[in-house]
């Protein structure tokens, strides 16, 4: 009743091929956009921005990127942390080298550089697959982190080996550094997330996305029907790394402000983003959002419930967090391999038939 395709007639090709062809989806999308752009910036404060909203927005970009590679193209990558580090360091070098250029351009360029690196490390995917490839991407993870740790040029020869985001502006509003207002950083990340999500959504329902999915479902068969595996896999690596690089740049420049590469972009980060897309749903853009929201919320909720309400020591809460995340991953893989996105699909199916399910 609430959710239906019936009666939603299209009279032009443009209507028929729009991003959200079903009315309900489209209105929901507009409402979410309106709330995100029109309401939240006015009520946001520092705590909400730093504890929940910024990490959610940034991880969502990374999750979309990884989902393109793992969920749509079937190439498992454990190098997300390393690629985020590439984005962060590229952004840092650009920010310090060209202080007058807008941050938008820096972040996009950082994404582009990460895409190049991603393609480079994606090359072995033409020869190896499955978890052999997963291990090969570990090489990227460890090598890149080591590189940023050891080569002083990347951190501008600073004594601590850290990188610190200098204060930069977009249209006269401070975006990075400690003095940036919460609403500005929020909007900046939100714009990137929105654009990335729209691009990803449209890529995945077009020719490119179908090629990726063909490769994922059976690469040899896809090759026989004329999908070029070289192009399909490398475009997936490029697009995915671009998104991951953008999220890494934002993570460093807007969210954290100062980064020690081994701690922030270590192997744990790779797993975290991988878990987001497993819990959210492999091969679903909505799933990337849901997974990112879930895994950003979980530690915060646990901390509020465990440490603040029950008064448990924080280390126990942190360990419980590990147990719950691990348990959830296994549960989702067993019970609902398509993740939260599938639950949403089931809910829509129910809404479609409600109140007369027979």
């Amino acid at each position: 009743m609430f959710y239906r395709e019936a009666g939603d007639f299209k009279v032009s090709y443009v209507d028929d091929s729009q991003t959200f062809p079903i009315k309900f989806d489209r209105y929901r999308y507009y409402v979410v956009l309106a709330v995100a752009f029109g309401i939240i910036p006015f009520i946001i404060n520092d705590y909400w921005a730093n504890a929940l909203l910024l990490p959610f927005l940034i991880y969502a970009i990374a999750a979309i990127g990884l989902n393109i590679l793992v969920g749509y193209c079937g190439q498992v990558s454990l190098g997300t942390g390393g690629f985020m580090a590439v984005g962060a360091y590229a952004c840092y070098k650009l920010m310090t080298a060209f202080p007058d250029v807008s941050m938008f351009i820096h972040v996009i360029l950082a994404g582009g550089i990460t895409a190049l690196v991603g393609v480079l490390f994606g090359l072995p995917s033409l020869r190896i697959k499955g978890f052999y490839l997963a291990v090969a991407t570990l090489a990227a993870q460890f090598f890149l982190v080591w590189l940023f740790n050891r080569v002083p040029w990347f951190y501008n020869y600073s004594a601590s080996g850290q990188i610190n985001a200098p204060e930069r502006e977009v249209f006269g509003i401070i975006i990075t550094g400690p003095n940036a207002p919460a609403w500005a950083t929020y909007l900046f990340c939100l714009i990137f997330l929105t654009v990335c999500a729209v691009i990803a959504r449209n890529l995945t329902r077009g020719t490119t996305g179908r090629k990726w999915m063909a490769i994922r479902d059976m690469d040899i068969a896809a090759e026989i029907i004329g999908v070029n595996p070289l192009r399909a896999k490398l475009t997936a690596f490029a697009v995915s790394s671009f998104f991951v690089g953008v999220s890494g740049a934002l993570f460093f420049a807007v969210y954290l402000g100062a980064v020690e590469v081994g701690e922030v972009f270590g192997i744990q980060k790779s797993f975290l983003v991988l878990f987001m897309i497993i819990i959210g749903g492999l091969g679903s853009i909505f799933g990337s959002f849901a997974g990112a929201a879930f895994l950003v919320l979980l530690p915060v909720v646990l901390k509020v419930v465990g440490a603040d309400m029950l008064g448990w020591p924080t280390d126990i809460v942190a360990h419980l967090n590990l147990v719950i995340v691990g348990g959830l991953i296994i549960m989702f893989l067993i019970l609902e391999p398509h993740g939260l996105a599938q639950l949403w699909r089931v809910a829509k199916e129910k809404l479609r038939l409600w109140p007369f399910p027979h």
Partner: protein
Amino acid sequence: MPDQLVFAMEVILNGLMAGVLYALVALGFVLIYKASGIFNYAQGVMALFAAMTLVGIMKGQVPFAHLINATFGTHIHYFGWNVPALLAIILTMAVMVLLAWAVQRFVMRHLVGQEPIILFMATIGLAYLLEGVADLMWGSEIKTLDVGLPQGINLWIDESTFNIFGYGFFIDNLDIVATVIAALLVAALVAFSQYTKQGRAMRAVADDHQAALSVGISLNFIWVMVWSVAGFVALVAGIMWGTKSGVQFSLSLIALKALPVLMLGGFTSIPGAIVGGLIIGVGEKLFEFAIGPMVGGATENWFAYVLALIFLVFRPQGLFGEKIIERV
């Protein structure tokens, strides 16, 4: 003899010893992979879990003490007894068997027939779960493990090499013990899989699940057994690494080191795990020795992976692995 050459020889020897330890972890992977086609990422965390349990039992720690104290406001930490090492090892082994059963019963049984990559991700989840449980059970502080293995420089080698080369090699006693134990372990495993009924059943399952089922082999039992054996290997590796560098979180990262070992040696080959381990051990130590100082050191973190990566491009199945044949 030139000094550099002598140093290089010492580095190679130490690399061989380190390689043995890598091979020890890699063995656990190979066992599970061969018998059930599961790539068990949790192997390293199993080693950590085993080592922590061993320390906990030896010191008479109360399991979940922190959690109990936090919930009920009590202050219990120790039972107040110390368990001798041998008994503690046996008890730990019992815990590992229990763990193997639980993993099989609650996780792997529900995932039979899934794609390998899904199983792989499930074991990543398992690794997180196990790490959290281990920390909750025994606390996350760094512990020392001492089961009476000899440690420190081997004086005999030091002296004899000093007499030959005019420079004494530094070889840790523990590494020598580890090498001996690893050799024994491999021999025992090979004997087990060749000459016992259960071992043969295990190989049959590895060969063909359905054929094994049809001749009356219980898959459930075999899988519990395989996970137990992997738990045993994890325990041995945990003891070695724990004695060497303390029982702490980084122990679980040696699992990651075992991955390139496996890629070099091939996922399905026990000799491959050994040879791969030795190549990686020697390779990374030599690389660090020769090239490391030029590029800022700590190349050990990534050398193994990059070596495996380059190797994979030319020979995807590893040195001793079975050739991968794909059909539509």
